[in-house]
């Protein structure tokens, strides 16, 4: 694990080094790919939570915060200064006075208030509501009990006061495109969905549904000298093999690699140098339903963790395009405990635990899975003989990914295999196991433990970052011990980047989400 981290860090430095060594060149076209399906959902980014859509949205829109990959945390983007008061519950944003929408109008506090009220419109169910709910009075708007969010107050055009319901870092809530700031006057028009207007470094030019989005440089972008490129084209390319041909043919600048291509690119001396990888904040796991009798016993859940040779699966099946999971929080989490060791492969120990739990002959359970190559049926198929070795029989129930999401939300399973966001905010990630979190929200295993709640509550209350991280590590270790899931792996996102494209950020929240104003192409690019 340590070696892998060193490799990743080394690559990061190498990339950063080479980018710094050259002066960013103005001009050219950045040709990115959107690899997760064959269409963008909508040009109204508030309506969609798909990673695919945020790829173009990072160029077109801006939120109150942005993710700083170098710092590993969200940083204010539309605010020059944030003052915290009221015991951490009141945030006062001194907004930028140089941020212009693509229609030439200056952004003010009214636009932010209008945007957040829109997101909380309960008749529309915008997915970003989950984040805005943290503002006092937002839930009332969502439920139709109020017209405006009471916790948002305009002090003047460029000062906004935000009252929160909990003491959290709002950066983790307001950095994704789901909370992009819209221009209040334009955003309300029907035409907005055909021609979106944002605050980002590139403005909208064209959308060919199912094929591409084209954006061009916004000259009034608030960061001096940026963006570097004239144009960004995001092409939809859901098929990995087609992406591979296009990348080798120099038609695209970035391509996300699957396990098979990862191996092929590593073996090819011409392509090896194009690989960029990062541990993303997604944990892959098998969730166990405590309402199913055997899984209500901690020893059984632990036995399953001991019975599965996770390293073997990651190595042989996932082609090392993943990092072994120790507990819930991923490698790039600020609260990740580097000293923690994963459950070792120990069938004898598993058998012993099963005997102690009253299942010496094992038992049978139904495992619901999708066909996903990295966390679906192929993995389940590999695990079945390992569990069989300790007497546990598996009955596979295969469903589509959309159905699996529904199964997981409703708790209609004995066990399921899934990939869940486990960051970047460690507190929010662990809160999914808090008793107060309803199952459909993200407490999919319906985990309830007062001792765990106590640790997490304490972490939420403390202002001392070091102490908070210590408590979060304790909570993470608690989960390891309780083993509500089989801790499988953390996703390793791998992207091939053409040598002429510079400024790629190793974003652990999603590698394809790039702050495009930092990217530039040198004169060896075919689209210079």
């Amino acid at each position, binding site marked *: 694990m340590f070696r892998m981290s060193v490799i990743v860090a080394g690559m990061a430095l190498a990339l950063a080094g080479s980018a710094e060594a050259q002066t960013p060149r103005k001009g050219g076209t950045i040709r990115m790919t959107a690899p997760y399906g064959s269409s963008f959902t*909508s040009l109204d980014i508030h309506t969609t939570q798909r990673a695919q859509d945020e790829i173009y949205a990072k160029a077109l829109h801006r939120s109150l915060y942005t993710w700083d990959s170098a710092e590993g945390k969200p940083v204010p983007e539309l605010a020059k200064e944030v003052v915290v008061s009221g015991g951490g519950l009141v945030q006062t944003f001194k907004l930028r006075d140089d941020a212009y929408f693509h229609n030439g109008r200056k952004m003010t506090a009214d636009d932010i208030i209008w945007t957040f009220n829109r997101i909380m419109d309960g008749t529309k*169910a915008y997915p970003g509501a*989950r984040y805005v709910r943290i503002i006092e009075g937002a839930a009332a708007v969502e439920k139709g009990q109020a017209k405006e969010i009471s916790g948002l107050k305009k002090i003047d055009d460029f000062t906004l006061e935000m009252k929160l319901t909990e003491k959290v870092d709002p950066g983790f809530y307001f950095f994704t495109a789901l909370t992009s700031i819209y221009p209040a006057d334009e955003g309300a028009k029907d035409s907005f969905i055909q021609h979106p207007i944002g605050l980002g470094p590139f403005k909208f030019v064209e959308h060919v549904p199912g094929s591409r989005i084209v954006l061009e440089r916004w000259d009034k972008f608030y960061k001096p000298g940026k963006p570097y490129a004239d144009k960004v084209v995001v092409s939809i390319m859901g098929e990995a093999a087609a992406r591979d041909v296009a990348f080798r043919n120099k038609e695209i600048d970035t391509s996300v690699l699957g396990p098979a291509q990862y191996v092929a690119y590593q073996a090819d001396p011409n392509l090896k140098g194009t690989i960029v990888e990062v541990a993303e904040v997604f944990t892959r796991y098998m969730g166990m339903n405590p309402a199913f009798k055997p899984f209500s016993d901690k020893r059984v859940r632990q036995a399953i963790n001991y019975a599965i040779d996770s390293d073997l699966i990651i190595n042989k099946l996932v082609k090392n395009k993943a990092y072994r999971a120790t507990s819930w929080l991923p490698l790039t989490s600020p609260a990740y405990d580097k000293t923690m060791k994963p459950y070792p492969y120990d069938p004898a120990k598993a058998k012993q635990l099963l005997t102690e739990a009253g299942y010496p002959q094992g038992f049978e359970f139904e495992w619901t899975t999708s066909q996903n190559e990295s966390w679906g049926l192929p993995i389940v198929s590999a695990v079945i003989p390992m569990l069989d070795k300790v007497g546990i029989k598996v009955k596979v129930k295969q469903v589509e990914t959309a159905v699996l999401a529904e199964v997981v939300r409703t708790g209609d399973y004995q066990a399921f295999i899934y990939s869940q966001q486990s960051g970047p905010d460690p507190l929010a990630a662990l809160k999914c196991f808090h008793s107060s979190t309803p199952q459909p929200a993200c407490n999919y295993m319906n985990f309830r433990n007062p001792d765990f709640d106590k640790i997490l509550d304490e972490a939420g209350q403390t202002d001392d970052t070091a102490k908070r991280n210590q408590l979060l590590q304790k909570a993470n270790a608690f989960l390891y011990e309780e083993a509500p899931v089989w801790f499988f792996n953390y996703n390793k996102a791998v992207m091939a980047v053409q040598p002429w494209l510079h400024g790629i950020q190793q974003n652990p929240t999603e590698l394809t989400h790039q702050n495009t104003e930092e990217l530039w192409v040198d004169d060896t690019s075919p689209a210079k």
Partner: protein
Amino acid sequence: MLSFLIRRLLQTIPTVLAVVLLVFVLFSVVPGSIASTISDDVDPQVELRLKQQLGLNDPIYVRFGNYIGKLAIGDFGTSFRTREPVTSMIAKRAWPTLQLIFTAMAFSVLLGVPLGFVAALRPGGLVDSAAMIVAVTGLSIAKFWLGLVIMYVFALKLGWLPSFGYGDGGLKHLLLPALTLGVSPMALFARTTRAAVLEIMTADFVRTARSKGMSETRVVKWHVMRNALVIILTTVGLQFGGLMGQAVVVEKLFSWPGIGSLLVDSVLQRDIPAVQGSILVVVLAFLAINLLVDLLYGVIDPRIRYA
């Protein structure tokens, strides 16, 4: 002719209704809800309100009735996913799909029919054997694999054409997906034409024409070709429907922005109004083309009357 057209149009109504009913019922019983389409963290109260707004809590027969009522005025509903009218989503995708299918069809007819003809004129000869090897191979190759091979050869190795995308909608970007889509019908047309021509060549009226001293060229042109065209036209009509289905794979592979890729996305994301609308448009296109083929029969063979 007009009464035939009206009668045929009326006959399509039960077919369309049956398809609408089937798709509606199918997507009403599959697992998954609007909540999983929109977000994985929807407030239960909001979800309930949304279902009420969309009429999803009504009994299935009420929902079906409402759906049919809207369809009658050309309203395919609003997409769960994009919040756009489904008609406008389909309208944006219709032209690229038509471009793709018509180009693939033109390629397959222009190559497949002459190939079958030449093969049938010298049965068992070198051209016949070669043509049939091409035909069987074309029919057997999976579209996805063929598309990748075509991409590899024409884009990566030869550098003649772009490997993906829509570009400005011109031929440069259209050729490779159309070629991929057209190989299989081309093979089928070659085989069908060969079989039809071989059969007609031994027919009594052909023998009579030859015995009257008509030149072989005139026999082929006036008797064989005309009669074979009826069979070929039937196959072409049926293949249009097939191509609309097969376009799904090709559109996805080449990032071509057609109805096929819209349908796949909508199915995967449980966007029921968009699925229903897309399927309905494909079915209507299929019926329209077959109606056109029926009308063309009379032009090719004046003996066919629209009684």
